[in-house]
């Protein structure tokens, strides 16, 4: 299995970032960056990353199971994460999540039938002072109202 030239370059550098013989250190960054390109942690990906980091596929599997951002099934093209933790909850985070469910017709960790959107209720994302906050992919949106969320979703539907 190979990755894009850009990612291959990144991985080659990454393996030099850890002390000699401790290349396992690159495992989690490699998994996350590879997932971004491939779309999910597939069995082939596990094999490949295991080989590169000098560990067994089983050791990779247990790591994949632990971290909430690593997932074995593909998400929607646009992954919408709504924070409902305490600071967001106080200013409407839960209502925002419910609104997102209705708007997209899906629930927590589900994907729309066209594969365009997925939704996740997430824990604090480090935007508490600008709550309620969401992330679409890696992009932050602050002080999100239901109306603003609708606009964001409609805009993404247009570009697909």
């Amino acid at each position, binding site marked *: 299995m190979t990755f894009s030239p850009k990612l291959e370059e990144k991985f080659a550098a990454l393996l030099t*970032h*850890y*002390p000699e013989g*401790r290349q*396992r*250190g*690159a*495992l*989690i*960054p490699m*998994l*996350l*960056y590879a997932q971004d390109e491939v779309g999910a942690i597939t069995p082939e990906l596990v094999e490949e990353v295991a080989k590169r*980091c000098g*560990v067994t596929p089983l050791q990779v599997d*247990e*790591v994949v199971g*632990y*971290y*909430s*951002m*690593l997932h074995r099934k593909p998400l929607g093209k646009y992954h919408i994460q709504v924070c*409902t*933790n*305490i*600071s967001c*909850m*106080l*200013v409407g985070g839960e209502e925002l999540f419910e609104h997102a469910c209705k708007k997209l017709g899906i629930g927590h960790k589900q994907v729309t039938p066209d594969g365009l959107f997925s939704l996740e209720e997430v*824990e*604090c*994302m*480090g*935007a*508490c*002072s*600008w*709550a309620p906050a969401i*992330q679409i992919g*890696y*992009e*932050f949106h*602050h002080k999100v109202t239901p109306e603003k969320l609708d606009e964001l979703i409609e805009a993404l539907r247009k570009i697909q």
Partner: protein
Amino acid sequence: MLYNEPSPLEVRVLTRRFGLPNSASIDTYLATDGYKALEKAFDMTPDEIIEEVKTSNLRGRGGAGFPTGMKWGFVPRNSPKPKYIVVNGDESEPGTCKDRVLIENDPHQLIEGVLIAALAVGASRGWIYIRGEYRYLIEIMDKAIAEAYARGYLGKNILGRGFDFDLYTHTGAGAYECGEESALLESLEGKRGVPRIRPPFPAVSGAFQCPTILNNVETFSAVPAIIRDGGAAFAALGTPKNGGTRLFCLSGHVNKPGVYELPMGFNLLRMINEVGGGVRGGRALKAVIPGGSSCPILKAEECDLPMDYDSLAKAKSMLGSGGVVVMDETTDMVKAALRIMKFYQHESCGWCIPCREGTTWLKKLLTRMDEGRGSSNDIDLIADLAKNMLGRTFCPLGDAAALPTISIVEKFREEFEAKLAASRGQSKFVVV
């Protein structure tokens, strides 16, 4: 980018470059005294650097408030092993969003702080561990690191002084527990974020089993100012034993939520009313979580106090990570307790039974209480269960889950009773 208006009451030390054009670039940094502290540190002995940090009364901004200079002093400098620096940028404590703005607006300040720490203990490598959700910050940091290499502030023979140091970013992938220092080190080594038994502490056996300085982003970011202007000047900004300023993250029911840099010891009520513009909608203040969701809650009448580690400890809470969550009179405290518990239950790594089972049962009990299915002894059961977790877990996450619960039940018991009264006769024995 700044996400909220600054306040005129701020004292800008760590945030002094915020708002400057291209504040993250090395050119802006160099034009505003950047890397001057590093040059100064090169002319100091390691002991002098550590002394200066001790004089500053800087205490760790990650949560526990341990004196930073003392921590650095624990690293065995004559050990034959390489020494490492690890920056904790996992920032996942609910209510906390300050490390994010520090990296976004002034990444070189962090690099300089790390370099000074490296000089103090003779470290050769460092990693900045950044939570996976902060991908754009990793890009900002990587760019700053590349600039620092290109200008001779990282790499071989730094500033021609014969000192070598390499610095990298390392991404997390979604796990609150990886903010706990020993779990973070496991994660850095490519493993699940399950904590290590201590001792040995990271200073002696940290990253890759080598002596390691591990501090929070804000802690390292304070170091250049301390070396540049002197530890005594930094100390003088705060209160005794609580040096300097810190970034407070105001959130919840305030008119002007935001991240504000204020002197240690700033009065909490003043922070809410004058910096935060008061409680939203002119409502009455009900409660405040003073330092991230792990901290015991304060009732409104307990909030007239200076925000420093010792005053908060005296009030039986904690200054924690600087996340000040403000709640007005409309806040449903049972709901708040439940939401906080849901988080800890989700994030428990599952290693120890009191934490894994305790958080799970507390979540169930709080859920049925909130949904109006509670039974008459649930309130005491919740309090007992939480108290029985205290001190019986491998890492402080167990306490972090129990403490807010205990304080909410104790201080707002009448709200639990009201929910019960409204739901009398519901499911008596079965907890689902």
